[in-house]
């Protein structure tokens, strides 16, 4: 499936495969179009994938680059874990956690940056940049360092300290912008018009977004070339959510998978839920909001792919839900205490929405459900501060036994 062109999702105008993201005719988003494959032998294609590297580049045939990049930080091929204790707690039978915190910079952003950076190098760029809520900044800085490229990352100045520190260490230019993510994004959209840089999520966005398809490919391969019945995934811009569906659909169309598109449930924080609100109101576009939530990695008030996320949820018989900050903290705890996976606030949003759907009876107990955990708990420690007490004792066995008795009596 060689990449053929960029095509407008709205009016179908076709453009060459260069650094552009907007249709000049209608301002719609551009997406990579691939040449129709010749005779596909699904068994042969599966063998070819299985013989590939243990990274997302095993799916190079479905990605918009000409050749596998040299000197890169390998991303993807993260664990898909069966979460029986979580399933039992929720009254379900088969729940899987795709743990994308197990990436080089601990979030799914390593996937999208891998593709954007590889394509940027093919196009001859020497500087890469991004507008980020934090995880993307980590990934851009790290992948640029590995590739020896200059980088600029623009973030809201009030971001979690862990995310700032874990970005600056790579030797990038960290630009804290006094404003929220949507302000950062507006500024970067303007800057991208004036500098010859590859902004991974602006002028390289059509390539970048394709990276999220690999979440679907991996899930299907790890399930033994089968589809889940239901997907629960977070929504910020809506790109990951819609590209997971595109990944499954491509493989269904190629005959690599049997069945139909899973039901898609999107997860947002109540403090920034423009897509969930539009879904509830029956609208096909999103009204922007000013974010106010602990889930900063999902705090996009003006989601670029909102209309497409709404369409996907509706045509797959899914929904888009929102959960409060308290439910997010409870979601983080639930996932940690049933699976051993400590996720950041975005994963708390996803887990809380999964729990909400299960409690409401929206999920048939026989369904196979996959929840996408997109980031690492160590990056948002403030969200769990004060949620439990540690014991402090003198170094004697008497002190321990006394404390143990006290705590047991309270339990």
């Amino acid at each position, binding site marked *: 499936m060689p990449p053929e062109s960029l095509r407008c999702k*709205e009016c179908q105008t076709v453009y060459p495969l260069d650094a*552009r*993201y*907007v249709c*000049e*005719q*209608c*301002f*719609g*988003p551009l997406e990579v179009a691939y040449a129709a494959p010749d005779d596909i032998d699904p068994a042969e294609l599966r063998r070819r994938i299985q013989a590939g590297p243990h990274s997302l580049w095993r799916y190079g045939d479905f990605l918009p680059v000409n050749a596998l990049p040299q000197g890169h930080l390998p991303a993807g091929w993260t664990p898909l874990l069966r979460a029986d204790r979580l399933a039992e707690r929720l009254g379900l039978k088969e729940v899987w956690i795709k743990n994308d915190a197990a990436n080089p910079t601990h979030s799914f952003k390593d996937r999208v940056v891998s593709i954007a950076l590889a394509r940027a190098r093919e196009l001859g760029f020497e500087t890469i940049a991004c*507008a980020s809520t934090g995880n993307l900044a980590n990934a851009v800085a790290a992948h640029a360092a590995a590739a020896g490229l200059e980088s600029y990352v623009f973030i809201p100045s009030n971001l979690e300290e862990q995310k700032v520190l874990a970005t600056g260490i790579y030797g990038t230019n960290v630009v804290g912008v006094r404003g929220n*993510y*949507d*302000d950062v*994004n*507006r500024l*970067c*959209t*303007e800057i*991208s*018009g004036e500098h010859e840089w590859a*902004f991974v*999520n*602006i002028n390289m*966005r059509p390539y970048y977004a394709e990276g999220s398809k690999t979440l679907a490919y991996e899930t299907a391969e790890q399930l033994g070339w089968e589809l889940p019945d239901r997907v629960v995934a977070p929504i*910020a*811009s*809506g*790109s990951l959510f819609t590209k997971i569906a595109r990944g499954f659909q491509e493989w269904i169309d190629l005959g690599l998978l049997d069945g139909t598109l899973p039901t898609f449930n999107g997860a947002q924080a109540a403090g920034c839920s423009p897509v969930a609100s539009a879904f509830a109101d029956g609208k096909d*576009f999103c*009204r*922007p909001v*000013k974010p106010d939530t602990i889930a900063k990695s999902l705090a*996009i008030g*003006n*989601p*670029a*792919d909102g*209309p497409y996320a709404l369409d996907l949820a509706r045509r797959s018989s899914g929904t888009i839900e929102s959960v409060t900050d308290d439910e997010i903290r409870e979601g983080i705890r639930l996932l940690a205490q049933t699976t051993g996976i400590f996720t950041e606030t975005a994963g708390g949003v996803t887990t809380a929405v999964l729990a909400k759907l299960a409690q409401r009876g929206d999920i048939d107990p026989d369904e196979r459900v996959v929840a996408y955990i997109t980031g690492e708990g160590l990056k948002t420690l403030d969200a769990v501060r004060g949620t439990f007490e540690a014991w402090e004792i003198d170094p004697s066995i008497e002190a321990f036994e006394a404390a143990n008795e006290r705590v047991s009596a309270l339990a």
Partner: protein
Amino acid sequence: MAVKVKIPTQLRAATEGEASASVDGATVGEVLDALYERFGELRNRIAEDGGLRRFVNVYVDGEDIRFLDGLDTAVKDGDEVTILPAVAGG
């Protein structure tokens, strides 16, 4: 009332390469109408059914007009109106 409108690179083919234009108008809608007067091709690219296409964002001094009064948002002398694609980020 003279207002500066910043034109994104994707639209400069329709503005003879100009990156900004100074036009008169008391509201964002009037400013855009004045802009379409000068550069006829712009209207089809960003306007639809009397409003804006859904992937077009317009800001007055950095604030999205959807948080203000939309196309009825009042502008004053020296304000800066920015047109940008909505599909960036995330």
